[in-house]
């Protein structure tokens, strides 16, 4: 049978083979029908063997048929005229005129650009890290040792080679310190991944922006200054910020940063801040001495702050969207946007 399978060259061959072995009166089918005459003690084993044989033969035949079909389709396509792309005169003009949708940047790109411009204007380097991180970059270098409960706080997508999809842009902190340290300021916007079920407020793939500033006398007062300046520029309104204690292993002290709500209208319930006047905006803090040390920076000489905020969340606030799934939906009607 194996030999016959190898000899199949056309679809007609395949059909003949199918009839011979697998069809209504094919050999395998007949043997299966004959099971009832076999001694009951052997019936189960023989039946299982035959069923496996039938399935395997079907699969092999299917693959051969598929290859033949593909080859035939390819042969047909070979009759198509060759489009000589090496010839610069072979050119189709970009469609234009009324009714043609112009191109555009993804809304997330537009928000990232805005953030980048603000921080670049304040002298920050705009860094850009990979999406696959080692366990060291994502956890160990960030003061989360193996047994640290913080590893539970994030649902990590682990890869078959032991690395992971970065759960936070903080995974690039160690690299930034080694590349630019000890005194620098940089942000690193990028895509991060969390193993979560999707709903209107949760995506497994979203964007964050990491920021770091390290120097000889960088203080909490400086952190507040930069965040206030950046948020004021992002929202184009004077923003107040406040810090609350927050726990992130890679900073000490760690803060949750709230921004004054720009959406509140007097006298109405505000769905964004639930009328509290404050919107939780990001986690931040003074970089933990262990994190500095891992980055090759002496924590007795240098100190600094780090922050990480959600670009996707910022985009939702900016565009007044209540479902984060639109960004990765590939829905062009959404992505092309409209005018207000």
């Amino acid at each position, binding site marked *: 049978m194996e030999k016959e399978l190898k000899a199949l060259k056309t679809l007609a061959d395949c059909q003949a083979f199918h009839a011979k072995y697998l069809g209504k009166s094919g050999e395998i089918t007949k043997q299966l029908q004959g099971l009832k005459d076999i001694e009951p003690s052997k019936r189960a084993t023989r039946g299982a063997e035959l069923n496996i044989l039938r399935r395997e033969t079907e699969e092999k035949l299917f693959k051969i048929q598929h290859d033949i079909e593909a080859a035939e389709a390819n042969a047909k396509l070979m009759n198509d005229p060759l489009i000589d792309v090496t010839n610069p005169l072979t050119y*189709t003009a970009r469609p234009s005129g009324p009714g043609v949708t112009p191109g555009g940047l993804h809304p997330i*790109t537009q928000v990232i650009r805005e953030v980048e411009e603000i921080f670049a204007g304040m*002298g920050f*380097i705009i860094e850009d890290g*990979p999406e696959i991180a080692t366990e060291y970059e994502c956890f160990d270098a960030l003061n989360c040792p193996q047994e640290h409960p913080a590893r539970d706080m994030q649902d990590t997508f682990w890869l078959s080679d032991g690395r992971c999809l970065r759960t936070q842009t903080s995974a690039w902190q160690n690299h930034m310190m080694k590349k630019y340290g000890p005194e620098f300021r940089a942000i690193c916007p990028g895509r991060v991944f969390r193993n979560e079920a999707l709903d209107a407020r949760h995506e497994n793939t979203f964007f964050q922006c990491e920021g770091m500033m390290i120097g000889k006398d960088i203080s909490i007062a400086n952190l507040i200054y930069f965040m206030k300046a950046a948020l004021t520029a992002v929202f184009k309104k004077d923003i107040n910020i406040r*810090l609350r204690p927050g726990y992130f292993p890679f900073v000490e002290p760690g803060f949750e940063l709230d921004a004054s709500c720009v959406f509140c209208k007097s006298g109405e319930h505000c769905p964004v801040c639930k009328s509290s006047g404050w919107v939780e905006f990001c986690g931040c803090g003074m970089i933990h001495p262990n994190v500095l040390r891992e980055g090759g920076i002496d924590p007795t000489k240098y100190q600094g702050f780090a922050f990480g905020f959600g670009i996707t969340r910022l985009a939702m606030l900016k565009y007044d969207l209540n479902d984060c799934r639109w960004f990765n939906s590939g829905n062009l009607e959404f992505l*092309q946007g409209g005018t207000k």
Partner: protein
Amino acid sequence: MKISLNWLNEFVNLGGIDIRDIVSRFSLTTAEIEGYEIKKPKLDAVVVEILTCEKVATSNKLSKLTITDGKKKYQVACAAPNVRVGLKTAWANVGTKVLAGIESTGMCLGADELGMSNLHESIIELDSSAKVGAPIAEALPFICDTIIEIDNKSITNRPDLWGHYGIARELACIFDRELKPLKKTSLTDIALLPEVPVKIESDLCQSFGAVKVKNITRKVTPLEMQARLFYLDINPHGFLVDLSNYIMLEVGQPNHAYDGASSVRLSASKGLRDGEVFTTLKGQVIKADMAEEMLFIKNNGSAVALAGIMGGQESGINADTIDAVFEFATFDSGSTRKTAAGLGIRTDASARFEKSLDTNLNLLAAERMVYLLNKYDKKASPASKWSYKTTRETKPIALRVDTAYVEKFCGVKFIWKDIIKKLTALGFEPTMVFPSADALDVVVPTWRATKDVTMQADIIEEIVRTYGYDKIVPMPPRVDVEPIAQPVKKVLVNRLKDALANVHGLQEVHTYIWSDTPSKLKVINSCIKGCDYVREALGPSLLSIIAKNGQARIFEIGQVVSNGKDEHRHLGICVPSYAELASILRALFGAKFKIGEFAGVAGFHPKNNATVLVDGKAVGCIGVAVDKDVAIAEINIDGLDPTRVNGGGKTFAAPSKYQKNHLDFTFEYDGVYGDIESAFDKFKHPLNMGFRLKDVYNKSYTLEFTVGSYEKTLTAEDINDIWSKIIEFGRKNGLTLKQ
């Protein structure tokens, strides 16, 4: 975690402070509060007294009562077993109906009907001093409470906040109020009693203490205790179990009780005996072969509890327990977490042990428990001394902080005597180092010293959070101004995106990093089965967008992997026209193409596909995607020069002041133009100023050469020379001049 305001008030008087202030100040100083809930009696009930009570003949449960609310008498039918004349209880006038032939007005209430417990066997028994006719909240003030919910995630680093007393300590510090000492019964001055044998046989147990109590007769938990537990989502079960939970919620020390009728010899060790099977209270079965790394509490050698997580089915106390042994221990945080996570059991106890508890809590919790036992059950008394072993006792930590450094770190000038007062309120022992006052010596209390506060930065946090983050004035830093070179990779992406969107009219899209096309790198714990390969190309994702939207002009710049390990950044483009796609890439990168190398690749048109070359180097491919009938490009943009995107990176030179000449040549060639182009790219002649393709007709290619010089006007000989050299060069390269 839920916290009762009544309970807190037992330790710190929060009178006169608005709950909203408590929520906001606690959130700003300590940890996030998710919200609060006001608890009130579920029914509008008053205190009544039972005046008469007789069994109803037609019912085996009902009694017929006459009650009074002080103003009026009512007849009520009631099924509770504890009805009797003279009893004061709670009653709500919910209307009149007929029960077993008796007219009954309103109802006498049990704790469950008032919403303060789950127990409903009997009606409330009020103290004889209760004022008849008064609202029930006056007789049972604890029925009204405010329950605050703290975000668990925000206190993972604070083992001391996993009990009411710790929260009370924070609030005492925040509002400058006094923290009352916990009332306890000393167990260290009853040394004459025998020991309960306890033994530590594994490092995973840091400390292990036990005390035996005899003559426990109380079965029903006091109503106030029931209400507190119930409001915090713990259903009352019976006095001893409730007391055990109560102690955990009060001081944060999980504990376990064992029946003390027969001899108890406790030990903590890893693993089970061969063939031994341990079944948890919830019925989970643990066999010896899976238990090697798990810590158990054993009584007379047999496992009775999974240490720090859950008791076993046969260990515990029951309704008949009169003598009990209480265990207070500290277990390794990592091991507790690992075992609990491995078995998928998370309990209130394991949640606390995972945070690294203070071993000194053992005795404190034991002394508090004996105090409460005695308070509610006068006959109960200790039957053993405090029996205690430890391998790793939590000790206070001494730290020195540099005051000038702290001020620089925070950007604040502090008044140090205020700081010392706040730290003291939290249990720290700060001492200014005199005479210079440039350092503060701080002793960290044991409940903060397990891992939370171990270095200077941790003390700074305590200083600045109790000082108030809102008092810090934003300040720009002083920095050296230096030119900043933005990383090339980022600049490239920005320029490409601008060109693609604005010049070529393409829409940017984002797609997921995983795909259903097999690759060597897989997400091993994906929730999206079958779509768990890390993509090697953007193409399939872009085609799926075309499938959803129909024909479109889209691009994505995103990450892919090759060889199952190296991450690259790709540009993928999808447009309807293959010829346009080629011209986009020519404009973007000055790309050239080599046709037909992807003939065998699935999905690609066998003829209309090409390798994309930038500066002679293959960087990707383009082709017609057969089943969607769109053109697709996949380019690895790592290493491309951002300055050259879309015609950038040009050089500029003054044009020659002498006249240039244009010479046309038509060559016949049975092949693609790219061959001719790459041939003539190598043509060298001093007068050659470049060439372009002017026209193609039927395998005839017309090339226009520009010839000229910077030094002179060309003579007829000059032109003839280059004319013949071009023709000859063509001939050598297989190009016949068309006559």
